[in-house]
């Protein structure tokens, strides 16, 4: 006990020493920007008191499942950042060395395979959560004013997430990743303006050595920063408009203290980590051979999140210019973004607009159907369905 007391004393003295030279609470409050703490932290108070205040801060009783999807995104993103950082220690982003370095990671580096698989599965889970979030927002009516920004940010997060996955997919530089990225880019290049910008950045419409390096920069620098910025916007909006009660729960009723929330967060992180490790062990992605620029493996298709767009573009007959169908696709995407603005004015926010509900559901069903169609296109065994 005496030893514990002395250790605590040293820690206290360190904190005091730092506190006189640095606003520790300010650093701590930065965490609240990313959803770790629900509300603002008073940066004028010393760290220990601010912490105690934060832990005792009352929360609405509904600050629990399923209002954890946003936090889940943060947790998964942090996992991706940590594992990605470890992978970057061995990865070499050149066409000559990329595949060999991935092999080094998954074969020779201690636990490299698990870091690689966790990173890969984490990305898929992250995208799944981002889709789930959009669905929950829409069907929970959480996209309506004053939460339109949350809806837009959720959509932007999904787009950023898919681009992170697409750029990361190429980095392994194996035959499957190369060709599915190529086919995915074929879809994206047709999108007006954005496709042209992408082609400009990537340096042409073919996937080659420069593409690999630029995708690497996108994957480790540009897109993660964009993702972080969007996360900030997301939680800043939540802090301003508050969590929304649902299913007849009265706002602010049955207060819960923050400490319980922190324990829940710990449980969530532990379980997510466990799920990722389990997926990595039980369902590892196979290690494919190095890319062969002259042989497309049978049945290679765009990644799953682009299948809907791919199926949509493919359904048009050949005489319809790609630019036209791609513009139509962009218009549909814009319609999705505009959904909250088509709802009734905030004064009538109690009831949902039936037309918007039908429109949103129709768009989602359409997306699901086109994804199915895109998945069935050019199957290795047969022709087109």
């Amino acid at each position, binding site marked *: 006990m005496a030893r514990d007391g002395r250790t605590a004393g040293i820690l206290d003295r360190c904190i005091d020493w730092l506190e006189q030279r640095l606003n520790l609470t300010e650093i701590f409050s930065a965490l609240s920007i990313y959803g770790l703490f629900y509300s603002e932290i008073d940066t004028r108070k010393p760290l220990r008191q601010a912490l105690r205040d934060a832990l005792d801060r009352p929360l609405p009783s509904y600050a629990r499942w399923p209002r954890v999807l946003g936090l889940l995104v943060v947790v998964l993103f942090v996992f991706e950042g940590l594992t990605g950082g470890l992978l970057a220690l061995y990865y070499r982003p050149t066409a000559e060395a990329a595949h060999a370095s991935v092999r080094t990671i998954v074969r020779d580096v201690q636990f490299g395979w698990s870091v690689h698989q966790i990173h890969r599965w984490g990305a898929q889970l992250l995208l799944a959560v981002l889709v789930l979030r959009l669905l929950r927002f829409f069907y929970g009516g959480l996209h309506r004013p004053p939460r339109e920004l949350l809806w837009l940010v959720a959509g932007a997060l999904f787009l950023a997430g898919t681009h992170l996955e697409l750029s990361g997919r190429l980095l392994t530089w194996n035959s499957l990743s190369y060709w599915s990225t190529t086919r995915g880019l074929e879809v994206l290049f047709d999108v007006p303006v954005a496709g042209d910008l992408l082609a400009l950045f990537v340096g042409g419409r073919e996937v080659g050595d420069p593409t690999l390096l630029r995708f690497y920069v996108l994957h480790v620098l540009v897109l993660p920063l964009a993702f972080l910025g969007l996360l900030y916007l997301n939680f800043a909006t939540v802090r301003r408009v508050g969590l929304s009660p649902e299913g007849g729960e009265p706002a602010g009723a049955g207060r819960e203290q923050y400490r319980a929330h922190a324990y829940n967060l710990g449980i969530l992180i532990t379980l997510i980590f466990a799920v990722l490790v389990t997926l990595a062990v039980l369902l590892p992605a196979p*290690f494919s051979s190095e890319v062969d620029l002259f042989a497309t493996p049978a049945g290679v298709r765009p990644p799953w999140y682009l299948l809907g767009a791919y199926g949509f573009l493919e359904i048009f007959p050949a005489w319809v210019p790609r630019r036209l169908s791609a513009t139509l696709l962009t218009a549909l995407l814009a319609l999705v973004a505009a959904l909250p603005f088509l709802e009734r004015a905030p004064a009538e926010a109690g009831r949902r607009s039936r037309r918007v509900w039908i429109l949103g559901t129709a768009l989602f069903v359409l997306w699901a159907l086109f994804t199915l169609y895109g998945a069935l296109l050019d199957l290795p065994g047969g022709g087109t369905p």
Partner: protein
Amino acid sequence: MIFCTAMALALMAGAARPVDAGAAGTCGTCHPDVRVQFERSVHAGEGASCADCHGGNPGTLEVAAAHGGRFNGRPPRRDIPLLCASCHADVARMRPYNLPTDQYALYQTSRHGQRLAAGDTRVAVCTDCHGVHEIRSPGDPASRVARRNIPQTCGRCHGDRGLMERYGKKGDPYADYLQSVHAVALLEGGNPRAAECSSCHGVHGAAPPGVGDVHRVCGHCHEPARRHFVAGPHRAALSAAGLPECAACHGNHAIVRFGDQPLERVCATCHAADGPETDLGGKMQALYTGAREEISRASGLVTQAAQVPLDVEDYEARLEEAKTYLMEALPATHSLSLDEVERFTVRARSIGEEVAAEIHEKFSNLRMRRLGLAVFWFYVLLTVAFLVGRRRRWRRESPP
């Protein structure tokens, strides 16, 4: 000087294409089809002219003057070897091209040359194989004597049953060759070192190998097999029986790979089907196929392991070694000694078994990951239980 002139003429031909220019000189004016053929030849590029073979005067368009002098028109077949030899047997003239000059001498020792000397003009002379005006270098893939084209060139006469029957030759060596392992390697596999006709029969001095020489001829390429054959009992026995050594079992032109067909059947063509010799053949084959299967099983495992991926570079190197032993085992069968064959197969086999065992061990290590997963979940649940417990205790203690 001649070369420079030819080059200048060739350049002029390329620039303006006058009818009478080019290597064929004015002859091409009246013989345009021959000119076209000749200009594709290796001779045209080296400054040879029509007059070098045909005589006459290439500097005039007057037919009488052009065909005058020592003009010989179409040289008779009998004279063709000597005509070619007038340049190709000239050491000083061939030196810059680093070409041999013994073709004519060799040709005279060949069956072709001997029969020509005896007055038979149907036999092959230089132009039958090399072409007449369009003579290309053997290195040119379009040449009739490029390695891949040699079987067809020889086959034009030797695949002609009617022609061959006049010489008392039965069968069709060209058709036989096309079925052989050599033809498959040369024509389908694209292996330029695979045997064609001249590999065994010689080039200009073409003749069938003598009975006692067959092992030497085959031994050019199949040196280990020859070594074992010469040391083994078959050589003396076959020569005593007057049988053509290698060809006695393998055939002469339609040489097939024994592969998976039972060796006993081959042995039984001379030996008793249930005799000890036939039995030995079966045992040797069993040793070989056993080792081969072991190696292919290990190779399959290596491929499987490389996809995981596991580090298989060491295994790949060891399997290469095993394949080398296996490759040695095949010629060793010609020694007809079971010990000699086993010396190689046992090594090949044991390497295959070692590699397979080590990969299996690595695979079982991989399966251990799942066991590790169970341990991992135990700790995960422990952590969750701890957190849930702490939360409950804290809720109980905290004032409502």
